[in-house]
């Protein structure tokens, strides 16, 4: 009997467990999934909570209910991975030996890493929205906010869902407009990036969208500390941004057990080969989803496409054959832009987001880098697809590798 242990029952861990359970012989393989709790959150839904468009309780389901029969679910906190002995120790002493280990323990916001963020002002004038508690608390704060300076801020990259701060800004602008309050609110978008986004074509398009909405862009802003008394963000190069309401994305870091086990980089992400997701340090360890140090977005979409590629590779690997698939960094993300419209971006390690149509070249029905109602409907529909097809590991009619068909390459030079 061989043991596969998967740490984390989020998007990547659940998908991998379900897909592999179908492929690995039950007489030869035991699959164990460990998570600290039994709450699976549909994280893309957090964005709508502050605007009263999503009931927080509707985003939470049971983790174990989404795991296939024949997958053992263990609730427990990982204390340490002892990779030299191929063993996981849980807090409380339980030990799980493994032949192969998949680390899929994600990334989480760490407000305590920025001085002044988590003190008396936390969830009074300073909010996060990429936790369910934070998004719910922000809903109350926004309801009482009718004038002043709203600053949307990113602490440092990488963050989970890098487009989320832009989406939040666009939705807040629309929400304030609908309430007749937009003229009484000044909006600032502060980012450590040199523009609205990293890649030139998308950065210019999204930067224009900030301009159109009169949201001031404060670029290259790397926060050193927050003064909660004067309500000011202070950067390392001593620029200051005052706020009445701060919506921040705190520093994101991988799980602490990754650091305790000596398996992480400076942000607790597991260094992996970016094409196979295998640990650079241990041949029988893989890291999937946000837990890996892939040079791309921390996004459910990356988790999804990389797991599609990982499964056949893993089967080859355990059969003693070379892994023949290579992950290209493919991701696609909807970007809500307010008033029931959204953009869609599709990209990989080498190709930046470009305009065009998706998933069928020239026909769509979705439009890349363009605000449409169809894209918004696509984003809403995805929640159903996530629970009913993606997590159970059923085939999704989207190509795993990115395609250039239907994309407008000439924009890259423009």
């Amino acid at each position, binding site marked *: 009997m061989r043991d596969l242990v998967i740490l984390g029952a989020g998007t990547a861990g659940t998908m991998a467990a379900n897909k592999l359970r179908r492929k690995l012989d039950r007489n030869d393989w035991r699959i164990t999934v460990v998570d600290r709790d039994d709450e699976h959150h549909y994280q893309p839904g957090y964005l709508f909570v502050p605007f009263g468009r999503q009931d927080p309780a509707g985003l939470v389901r049971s983790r174990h209910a989404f795991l296939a029969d024949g997958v053992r679910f263990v609730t427990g906190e990982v204390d340490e991975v002892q990779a030299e002995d191929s063993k996981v120790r849980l807090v409380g002493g339980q030990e799980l030996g493994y032949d192969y280990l998949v680390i899929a323990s994600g990334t989480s916001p760490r407000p305590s890493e920025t001085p002044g963020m988590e003190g008396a002002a936390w969830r009074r004038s300073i909010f996060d929205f990429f936790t369910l508690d934070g998004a719910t608390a922000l809903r109350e704060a926004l309801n009482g906010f009718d004038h002043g300076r709203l600053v949307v801020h990113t602490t440092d990259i990488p963050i989970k869902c*890098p487009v989320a701060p832009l989406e939040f800004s666009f939705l807040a602008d629309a929400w304030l407009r609908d309430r007749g309050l937009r003229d009484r609110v000044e909006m600032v978008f502060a980012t450590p990036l040199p523009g609205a986004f990293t890649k030139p074509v998308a950065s210019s398009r999204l930067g224009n969208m900030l301009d159109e909405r009169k949201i001031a862009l404060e670029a290259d802003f790397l926060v050193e500390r927050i003064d909660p008394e004067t309500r000011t963000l202070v950067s390392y*190069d001593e620029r200051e941004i005052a706020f009445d309401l701060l919506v921040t994305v705190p520093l994101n870091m991988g799980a602490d057990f990754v650091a305790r086990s000596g398996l992480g980089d*400076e942000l607790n992400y597991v260094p992996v080969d970016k094409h196979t997701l295998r640990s650079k340090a241990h041949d029988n360890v893989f890291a999937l989803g946000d837990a890996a140090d892939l040079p791309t977005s921390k996004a459910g979409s990356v988790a999804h496409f990389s797991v599609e590629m990982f499964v056949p590779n893993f089967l080859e690997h355990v059969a003693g054959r070379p892994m023949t698939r290579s992950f290209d960094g493919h991701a696609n993300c909807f970007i809500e832009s307010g008033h029931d419209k959204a953009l869609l971006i599709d990209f990989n390690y080498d190709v930046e987001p470009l305009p065009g149509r998706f998933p069928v070249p020239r026909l769509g029905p979705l439009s890349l880098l363009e605000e449409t109602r169809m894209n918004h409907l696509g984003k809403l529909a995805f929640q159903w697809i996530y629970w009913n097809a993606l997590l159970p590991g059923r085939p999704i009619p989207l190509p795993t590798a990115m395609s250039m068909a239907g994309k407008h390459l000439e924009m890259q030079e423009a």
Partner: protein
Amino acid sequence: MPVTTIDGHTIHVDDEGFMTDYDEWDEQLASTLAGQIGVELTDEHWKALHFLRTDFREKGETPTLRRVSVSAGIPTKTLFALFPAKPAKKMAYVAGLPKPRGCV
């Protein structure tokens, strides 16, 4: 890739002037590159630059500011003082490494 000559060295650079060939760099060239962006190199600068060179050789990526501060033990505030305004870009430029990749 454009080729340019700086201080008697013929080097390959990208559109923004970042060197693209790890082995074309040396310390004399670094001093010249630093001078071009108004930085005079002290021991503290060299500590950061040597960390960048070593880390890139091992990892194949230009390290982020956070990585330099955590792994080389140079506080971010100091990096901003040594390479004002855009330390990540400026360090990479002087160290002869690719422009740091912002994660998408």
